[in-house]
């Protein structure tokens, strides 16, 4: 019997989580009341589908909520998600519940939802996750993608390899000679939209998106190897004052970063201006050249485009870059645009959906797996797991472990020390290991860790 998971909502988030879990040999049932969305799921994924509202007890019973281990409520509507969890709690109290709730008004009640009424085990707010991601990106110069492990002590960072970098063209084997003492572990390379887990003989090429693992305090040294140097961020311009823009502005205020926010809707501007103290709220169009130069865009350290329309975001970012902004972060939701970002010169991308998927996967995999982040859209995951005494990976050199193709150990955390592994490293029981794995290697990783990844 496989683990059974019910996903309410066949939107972008529901679809991609379903595709992840279906590939990992889980029994997945997807519910949605839109037949078109359901058709898309049943045509593309090997999952069961039920047409109907996820908040309806009848539909949930039809989907088999009684024997489901987990229910993920990820529709666009907070209310539907909450009601779905409420109903699930009545019919099948033992089912773990996870809901996406975005409205900031609910923020204060998350604890309540967990402990009292519908007993939602985890509440995901992708807006909060996105704001966190943006903040992380702002703090690491040159990073295209960034994630954290071991409570932030270990970071995994993706940077673009430029032409002028000393690493371009080097074989991984030769890296120690080029960079001297500093240890650098390249975990993955994205080249021409293909994610590669490189071996010693592979060469880095300029234009690659290189993922590496680094300890927090050595991060800046490592980045300098890639010719990325820290320059303090002082001025930020946010285009789009929606939920995320507002949250971000609040965060920037807390960190004393000078912030301007451009919002098209005058009423929304009033709302923002009432609630934000130091931030300058500008009413106007974010892609208006006049307005941008009037507000000294050339002096901006970072421009963050967060409107709900991704085409506008892309164009506004390109415009800002051209007018002299040092760095841009663009919100893009449509996954089909991700392969384009490099080609059109968009550096850093955030996506509420991807954030939601990441945090849901991370929460779904609690237990022996501590965290998981999916990178490059969908192709690979970074998993942090505890090495069990019973598993095949402990107490022998890494060289001798037959790892599945497309997976590698990228870090070992032993109490307070962090080991960047080599072929000779030995994993000891109760170490936390960080594993990079392509999607198709994940079931095999489960096996190698000798425990089924425990869910919840």
């Amino acid at each position, binding site marked *: 019997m496989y683990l059974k998971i019910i996903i309410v909502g066949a939107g972008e988030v529901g679809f991609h989580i379903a595709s992840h879990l279906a590939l990992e040999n889980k029994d997945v049932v997807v519910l949605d009341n839109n037949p078109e969305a359901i058709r898309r799921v049943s045509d593309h994924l*090997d999952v069961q589908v039920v047409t109907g509202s996820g908040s309806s007890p009848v539909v949930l019973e039809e989907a088999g909520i009684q024997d489901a281990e987990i229910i993920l409520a990820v529709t666009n509507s907070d209310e539907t998600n909450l009601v779905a969890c409420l109903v699930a709690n009545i019919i099948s109290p033992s089912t773990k519940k996870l809901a996406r709730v975005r409205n900031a008004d609910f923020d204060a009640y998350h604890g309540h939802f967990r402990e009292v009424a519908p007993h939602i085990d985890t509440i995901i707010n992708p807006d909060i996750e996105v704001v966190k991601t943006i903040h992380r990106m702002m703090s690491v110069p040159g990073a295209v993608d960034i994630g954290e492990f071991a409570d932030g002590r270990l970071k995994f960072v993706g940077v673009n390899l430029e032409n002028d970098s000393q690493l371009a063209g080097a074989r991984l084997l030769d890296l120690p000679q080029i960079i001297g003492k500093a240890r650098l572990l390249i975990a993955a390379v994205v080249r021409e939209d293909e994610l590669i887990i490189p071996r010693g003989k592979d060469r880095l090429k300029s234009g690659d998106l290189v993922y590496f693992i680094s300890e927090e305090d050595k991060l800046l040294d490592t980045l300098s190897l890639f010719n990325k140097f820290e320059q303090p961020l002082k001025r930020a311009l946010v285009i789009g004052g929606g939920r995320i823009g507002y949250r971000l502005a609040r965060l920037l205020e807390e960190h004393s970063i000078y912030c301007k926010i451009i919002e098209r809707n005058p009423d929304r501007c009033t709302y923002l201006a009432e609630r934000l103290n130091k931030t300058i709220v500008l009413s106007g169009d974010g892609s208006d050249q006049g307005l941008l130069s009037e507000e000294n865009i050339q002096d901006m350290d970072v421009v963050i485009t967060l409107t709900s329309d991704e085409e506008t975001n892309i164009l506004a970012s390109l415009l800002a870059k051209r007018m002299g902004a040092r760095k841009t972060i663009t919100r893009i939701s449509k996954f089909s645009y991700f392969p384009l970002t490099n080609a059109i010169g968009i550096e850093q991308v955030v996506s509420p959906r991807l954030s939601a998927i990441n945090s849901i996967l991370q929460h779904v995999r609690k237990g022996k797996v501590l965290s998981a982040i999916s990178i490059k859209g969908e192709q690979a995951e970074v998993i942090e797991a505890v090495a069990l005494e019973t598993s095949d990976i402990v107490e022998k050199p890494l060289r001798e472990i037959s790892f599945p193709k497309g997976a590698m150990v990228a870090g070992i955390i032993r109490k307070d020390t962090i080991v960047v592994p080599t072929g000779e490293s030995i994993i000891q029981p109760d170490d936390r290991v960080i594993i990079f794995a392509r999607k198709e290697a994940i079931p095999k990783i489960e096996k190698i860790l000798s425990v089924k990844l425990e869910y919840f």
Partner: protein
Amino acid sequence: MRWRYILHTIAIMCLFFGLTMMLPLVVGLYYRDQSVAPLLKSMAITVFSGLALHFLFRSGKAEVISQREGMAIVAIGWTAVGLFGALPFYFDSGFERFVDAVFESVSGFTTTGASILTNIEGVSKGLLFWRSFIQWLGGMGIIVLSVAILPFLGVGGMQLYKAEVPSPVPDKLKPRIRDTAMILWKVYALISLAQTALLLLGGMSLFDAVCHTFTTMPTGGFSTKNASIAHFDSVYFDCVFIFFMLMAGINFSLHYQFLRGKPLVFWQDSECRFFLGAVLVLTVVVSINLYGSVYTGIGSALRYGAFQVVSIITTTGFATADYELWPAMTQLILLLCMFIGASAGSTGGGMKCLRIMLCFKYCYRELFNLIHPHAVSPIKIGGKSVPDDVMRSVVGFLALYMGLFAISSVALAGLGVDFTTSFAAIAASIGNIGPGFGMVGPVDNYARIPYMGKWLLIWCMLLGRLEIFTVIILVVPEFWRK
């Protein structure tokens, strides 16, 4: 269209299919008859072809297959299986021409049960077993079996499943298509086991019991006896066959739910009610018609009438009597049964009760809307409204079915076959029944159909088994356009 991938999948299927020839081989070896050599030769050729194709196209790998590719795999796969399955017949002395062997093989796989054999009892046991066994394989579907057993088909399984399973809306019993396919085969095997046991209990030999089970459960209709079921002439056997033909004509997902402890499920399903109701009404009418005119006792009228109605409406095609000697009204009812067919999701053929029901409801809605022009009246089945696209495909299916039936029967008559025979042979082939009327009646066979006519019927059988669309799409030019 990624041909490498399509051909690679078919190669694996051929390989797998070649290995299933082991079973009749064991039977042949046990009886030490002349089927051993033909079976060995065929197995070697099939396995070798599979291996050759596999190595030629081994680079063909795909994560996701499109609906179009799924249809191509199923249609070409079935053709290939039909051809390879014909080899044992061809190497046997009883079949002169290749077309005869292919006819017998395709008739088996498509569960039609039309034969060109005049003296069935003269054929070796190994081949007779093979003949029954391929019906059993084809009944639940060779692709569904592959999806259940071969792990690599998992990802594209849904597309293949949709292209093979005869139903306007394929049920997915389990989240994973592999599990669904596995369950269907398990239920199928379980019911088959029950039938074999009951036949053995009635005193049939093990060989005959197994062979007849293998042709009842897929609603196939091949028999190991010249006189079909009439050979046994036993009320007990007739009842057993009637019962299991009905079982085979019911949607297999209902059987699954029944086995999971929902005893009322047959009654709750509206299609099943329609199907059983139709069988009941037609049996009563036929029996009354037969009583007095053919049979003097009400008991025997009921026995033979019921058997024939069930045999034809489930598209099995067993015979206990020569219904061509029966009154015209009964004959016409049987002819209509050929078109109605069994339930969707069963192993039976024909147009399927579900489509007929939907068609009736559609017509009624048109009338209803003439009276109440503003009424909102969705078409409902089992309390749920049927989406428009399903309705469209049902109407399209019925139109294609009738259109292809009309064209093919004219073509067959053009080849010099008489009026009744052309009409009935096409109806019996496209509906996967087997025996028809005239030259191909229950006591005759298809041997005297002209050469080209046999190819035409082979094509019709494939059309019927794969529910028209999957096969006919291959001759649509748009399908091949890049």
